[in-house]
């Protein structure tokens, strides 16, 4: 942005050019007086943030210098259809008065970009005198000079009635009528004022642009904050995002679920501007929020679509991949809503593309028939999954040459051969695309899920790879069956028992097994009520009933101080006494009971598991 000093200089230069020597060298007020006025006016406009105030001061000075009883400064409005009075001087205040462009003496002056003098209004047919009737002011003589810069019409300055005491000037005094030299002088001043006003307007626009630029930078900062922080060195999921402009329409995210699985997403919002960035923020928040409910990826995308469609602007959409990855097994469940096919790299060196199973998010469900986005289940078996936006494959590596799918694959294989980790590999691609010497064509976003490390750890533990495809039939209940959010009080337990009864029965457990599971869950919830919350009902408990890969799982979350897991043990049954039976019941009935790290590290999360036998 130009600074004030250069603006001020610019104005003075302009004046010199417009005025030439004709007027300033003319008769009347001293040259130095006139130069002083011009300089002062230019300074005022340049230094003041209040253009209106500067215009009023300029008009007052001009009127005083020329010697006028009153004056007004008119500017063309944005439509250029009206001339609006922005400053007035003298006995009548006409600020805000609007006249049709082209009408009256002012209009004629602006339209023709020529100055006007009506030495005696009584003799001019254009003079309506309507204002005089309203205000009681008697107009005798009018001077009007246009303000224009390089053909751009800005407005005009009008002066009325020559005063008898015009400082420094000798002509026309006495009869209230202007003389030719007054007009010449006004012409010069008006031209200068016009330039100053134009400059001040430009400066205002620049300042506005600067504010917008800063706001955009802030938006970008907030947007970067929506991306997940990188995980630890051996964390299997990583991502990179390089916006083509300040803000990005792409995003990726991942977080760890209660049982160690990692939920992930990568998405590309149509467009690259602020509207795309805002929709990106919305989609990203929806993923974070709904993703924590741990729906299956297909249902998650269905929910996000419903939310986006409810409020989204028409014509904008988001291509999105969402899924879960389990480092303990290498299993990935993935749904693709209209996105560039992710690539699965198998350790034998082959790649497989996972094409989209549904249209992008943002297409109203009534058009697509709704329903969950189809899911694909795969096992990485020590390989990797790469998800990226088309800004990657369509990005230029050299002038006019796109990276392409093959180029991306080659770089991944090459990086792997060089022993680079996944984060290094994808960052290398992003750097290659941003250093091609050309601006990015589109946002560049890549996420990698690298199963190599987890597979090594699984092998060390002697765990063999699971069967390649164990996707559940679509019509079987799977994932979260029911979630209860109840106060941690004894009175809540009956509701827990009813829900468990329905869910366990739905999973195919026989009556007696169902009774056992009810007892185990009830006992676990009792421990929350009695021990975690000390029987005072101080907080909530959240109970998830899930079916996961042939297991019935119950997750019980409380928000109390962490319990000392080592102290939780069943009592000796020979010791017949009240209490202490709960944990024994749970151990007896369920196949597994384990404490998991709670989300956000707050409270306790207990998981009870029982295998569903066919």
């Amino acid at each position, binding site marked *: 942005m130009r600074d004030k000093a250069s603006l001020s200089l610019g104005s003075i230069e302009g004046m010199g050019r417009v005025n030439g020597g004709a007027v300033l060298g003319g008769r009347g007020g001293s040259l130095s007086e006139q130069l002083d006025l011009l300089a002062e006016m230019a300074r005022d406009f340049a230094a003041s943030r209040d253009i209106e105030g500067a215009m009023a001061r300029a008009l007052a000075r001009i009127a005083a210098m020329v010697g006028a009883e009153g004056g007004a400064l008119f500017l063309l409005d944005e439509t250029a259809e009206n001339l609006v009075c922005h400053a007035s001087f003298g006995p009548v205040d006409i600020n805000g008065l609007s006249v049709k462009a082209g009408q009256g003496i002012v209009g004629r002056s602006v339209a023709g970009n020529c100055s006007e003098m009506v030495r005696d209004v009584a003799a001019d047919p254009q003079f309506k005198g309507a204002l005089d009737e309203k205000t009681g002011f008697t107009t005798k003589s009018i001077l009007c000079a246009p303000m224009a810069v390089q053909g751009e019409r800005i407005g005009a300055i009008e002066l009325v009635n020559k005063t008898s005491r015009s400082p420094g000037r000798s002509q026309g005094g006495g009869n209230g009528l202007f003389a030719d030299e007054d007009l010449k002088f006004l012409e010069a001043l008006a031209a200068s004022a016009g330039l100053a006003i134009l400059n001040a307007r430009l400066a205002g626009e620049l300042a506005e642009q600067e504010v917008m630029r800063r706001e955009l930078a802030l938006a970008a900062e907030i947007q970067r904050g929506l991306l997940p922080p990188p995980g630890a060195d051996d964390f299997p999921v990583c991502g990179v995002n390089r916006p083509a402009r300040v803000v990005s329409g792409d995003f990726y995210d991942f977080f760890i679920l209660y049982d160690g699985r990692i939920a992930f997403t990568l998405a590309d919002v149509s467009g690259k501007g602020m509207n795309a960035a805002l929709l990106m923020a919305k989609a990203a928040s929806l993923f974070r929020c709904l993703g924590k409910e741990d729906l299956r990826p297909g249902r998650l995308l269905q929910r996000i679509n419903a939310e986006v469609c409810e409020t989204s602007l028409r014509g904008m959409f988001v291509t999105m991949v969402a899924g879960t990855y389990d480092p303990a097994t290498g299993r990935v469940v993935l749904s693709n809503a209209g996105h560039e096919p992710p690539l699965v790299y198998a350790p034998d060196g082959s790649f497989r593309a996972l094409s989209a199973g549904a249209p992008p998010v943002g297409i109203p469900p009534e058009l697509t028939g709704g329903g969950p986005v189809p899911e694909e289940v795969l096992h990485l078996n020590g390989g990797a999954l790469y998800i990226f936006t088309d800004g990657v494959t369509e990005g230029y590596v050299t002038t006019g040459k796109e990276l392409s799918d093959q180029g991306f694959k080659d770089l991944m294989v090459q990086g792997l051969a060089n022993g680079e980790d996944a984060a290094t590999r994808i960052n290398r691609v992003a750097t290659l695309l941003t250093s091609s010497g050309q601006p990015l064509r589109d946002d560049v976003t890549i996420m990698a899920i690298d199963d190599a490390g987890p597979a090594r750890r699984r092998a060390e533990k002697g765990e063999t790879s699971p069967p390649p495809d164990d996707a559940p039939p679509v019509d079987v209940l799977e994932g979260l069956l029911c979630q209860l959010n109840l106060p941690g009080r004894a009175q809540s337990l009956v509701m827990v028992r009813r829900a468990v009864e329905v869910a366990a029965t739905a999973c195919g457990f026989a009556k007696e097994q169902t009774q056992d599971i009810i007892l185990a869950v009830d006992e676990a919830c009792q421990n929350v009520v009695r021990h975690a919350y000390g029987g005072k009902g101080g907080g909530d408990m959240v109970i998830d009933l899930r079916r996961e890969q042939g297991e019935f799982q119950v997750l019980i979350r409380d928000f109390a101080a962490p319990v000392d897991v080592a102290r939780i043990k069943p009592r000796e049954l020979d010791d017949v006494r*009240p209490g202490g039976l709960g944990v024994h*019941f749970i151990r007896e009935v369920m196949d597994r009971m384990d404490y998991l790290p709670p989300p956000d590290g707050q409270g306790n999360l207990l998981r009870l598991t029982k295998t569903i036998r066919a």
Partner: protein
Amino acid sequence: MDIAISDQGGLKVVAISGEVDLSTSPKVRDALLDCIFKGAGVVVDLSKVAYIDSSGVASLVEAFQNAKTRKLSFALASVGDTPLRVLKLARLDQVFIIHDTVDSAVAALG
């Protein structure tokens, strides 16, 4: 959960119906101990108990122990499948005196 107490052959028959859980077991405990502190032997009729948890079992154990120290009779009667399963899980089916019916319990204890 409801508790009905009747006198039969010099014993208190405490009939419990409904679900005995953390919110209702204190009432069961109070009713049983009240009978015992008044010096009566007790037969607990569990025929109408649809559910009992560890806190309910604990109430029975506490009453049983108090009866024992006072040399009073204490028996369970008409234990349905669901409560019996819980007693078995706690290995208490071998600790409590359990009769098939209230009548047989009263006849045996009275």
